[in-house]
């Protein structure tokens, strides 16, 4: 009896919500991406579009408009202005600069536009960051490496672009972890600009210079390049190195039984941000306000980790996808709802 009453109530509530939503819940969300140099970004946009589509089942009509092109910082500020001209309800941006958008986000806020940054944090008080903590991302790989090496050994690091905020945070992350292991010595750190070929070249040089290294901390696509050099030098049995999340690499990792571990920065972050944005547009409030991070405006998403224990699961998840497809995860609508009051 009680159960059926509850059921009836929820049904009525659901109907009320859906009736209400068909009338009022039309949202227009602008997605801005300022760099199209990798498939990861393409996948990020595609997943966000699919996430918007999924809201239809909930009776919410989310229209996305996308601006995705290689632009400089002023060009991406123009993206935001274009969205403002078009009259969107929210803007989700993968920003080219952490600080350069403060004035324009302030203007967007004045027009009652919700601004969410993803993948890279922004300093603006008028925006919320929904994405992973890049520092924790860097630390997770370092922790895996330190533990795999039993807390001692010579390690090299291959970093991305010097001065790029995500790179600097990741570097801070691994430095903090390696600092806790007195017997781990970072013998050299080089920049390979997130380029697979440069990563391979850098690794070759490092292998030639330091024959006794036992660990490599390397990020993203550069990991595939670095591992190629390690395999070419036939050192894969004596070296542990961090890996990456594209299917091509996961396949090699599995078939060659590499000693690797990879922090996952999922391309689904923008889809997660979109789900959070829609709930915010519905007027819902976060249980815990987004106040994390150095700018006090971040809401951090969980960071999956792939190592040899769950490698098979990861390999299954990307099975049948093209080689450039990245292992992904996102905050589903239901997961996102749990974060709200």
């Amino acid at each position, binding site marked *: 009896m009680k159960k059926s009453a509850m059921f009836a109530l929820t049904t009525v509530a659901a109907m009320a919500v859906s009736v209400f939503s068909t009338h009022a819940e039309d949202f227009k969300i602008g997605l801005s991406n300022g760099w199209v140099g990798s498939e990861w970004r393409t996948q990020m946009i595609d997943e966000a579009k699919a996430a918007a589509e999924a809201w239809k089942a909930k009776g919410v009509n989310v229209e996305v408009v996308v*601006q995705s*092109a290689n632009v400089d910082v002023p060009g991406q500020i123009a993206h935001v202005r274009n969205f403002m001209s078009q009259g969107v309800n929210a803007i989700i941006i993968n920003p080219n600069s952490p600080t*350069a958008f403060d*004035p324009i986000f302030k203007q967007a806020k004045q027009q009652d536009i919700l601004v969410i940054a993803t993948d890279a944090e922004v300093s603006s008080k008028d925006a919320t960051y929904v994405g992973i903590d890049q520092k924790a991302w860097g630390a997770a790989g370092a922790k895996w490496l330190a533990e795999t090496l039993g807390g001692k050994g010579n390690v090299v690091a291959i970093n991305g672009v010097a001065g790029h905020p995500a790179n600097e945070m990741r570097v801070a992350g691994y430095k903090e972890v390696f600092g806790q292991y007195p017997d781990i010595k970072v013998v050299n750190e080089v920049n390979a600009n997130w380029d697979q070929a440069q990563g391979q070249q850098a690794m070759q040089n490092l292998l030639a210079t330091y024959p006794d290294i036992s660990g490599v901390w390397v990020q993203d696509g550069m990991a595939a390049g670095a591992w190629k050099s390690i395999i070419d030098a036939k050192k894969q049995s004596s070296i542990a190195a961090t890996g990456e999340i594209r299917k091509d690499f996961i396949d090699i990792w599995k078939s060659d039984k590499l000693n690797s571990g990879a922090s996952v920065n999922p391309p689904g972050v923008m889809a997660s941000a979109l789900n959070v944005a829609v709930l915010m547009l519905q007027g819902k409030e976060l249980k815990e306000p987004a106040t994390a991070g150095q700018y006090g405006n971040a809401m951090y998403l969980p960071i999956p980790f792939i190592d040899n224990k769950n490698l098979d699961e990861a390999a299954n998840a990307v099975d049948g996808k093209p080689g450039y497809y990245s292992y992904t995860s996102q905050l589903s609508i239901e997961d996102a709802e749990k974060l709200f009051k």
Partner: protein
Amino acid sequence: MQQTLSTSVANASPLKSVLQRFPFVPALIILIALVALNGFFQPRSLSFGSITGLFSTYLALMLLAVAQTYVVFSSDIDLSAGSIVSLVNVVIIVLMEKWGGGGLTVIAACLVGILTGLACGVVNGIMIAGLRLQAIVATFATSIFFTGLALYVLPVAGTPAPEAYWLTYGGTYFGIPFIFYVVAAVAIILGVLARMRLTTQMLAVGDDAMAAFQTGLPVTMIRIKGYVLCGLFSALAALCITGDTASGDPLVGSKMTLYSVAAVVLGGSALSGGAGTVTGSLIGALIIGLINSLVFFVGTPSEWQNLVQGLAILIALMAGILVSRGGRA
């Protein structure tokens, strides 16, 4: 050069003589067409607020295009212009932070920034005109050097500009947005520069350096002056970008360099030197901005936006050349 000019004007069609005197006319026609198209697809893009936004965002690129023009005049090129923007940006941000961010210190920091830009120009000028290094490679090298300096001054993007600075840049005075005062001031400076002997001398060097040398022009000095002007306007571009972004970023200008070269060419200047106008470059920068907006306003799917944007710039280039040829025929 004077010779060919006078004979061709004598038996020229009206279009031809207009193009002779105003080589940026094709660019202007393209600009007007783009404004109309933007307005057609998104009427709100022609609102006063949007136009102000357009200038506020692209003023930096316009100034950088002007900077590039002064070296292109004498058939040089500056691939370090964007890095100078980054360097000046972080220098003034760090100084404003150190000195407290009050009104006078902001102005002092801007002056140091301008001096930094001038110094970069002198370095480039001496490298290329003085030591005879190839401009394209030498400035590629100095661009890496200036970026390195910028990273030394401010290792990672951050550090907000004082509110006094960016609220002024984004503010409105006597009913007119501040940036339009900047536009007016720049127009006056450019007008004066265009009437100076130096501009003609730079064009003469670009037209035929050997001939210019033989007529007694100090070619080396003229080319160095071109690079110094380039440094100056790159620094001014940095002041604008700092106003629009309100922060320091040691990589902010790196992607702008090639856009500045594209703007120069779109504006009707010849990369081989000897012919061109700064007005054209200003228009060229706006064309790039409007193309980016138009690609979005017509509703191009995201996966095609880069392709369409590239095609649109190519079409603008071709249209410009066709109009010029029509004038010559």
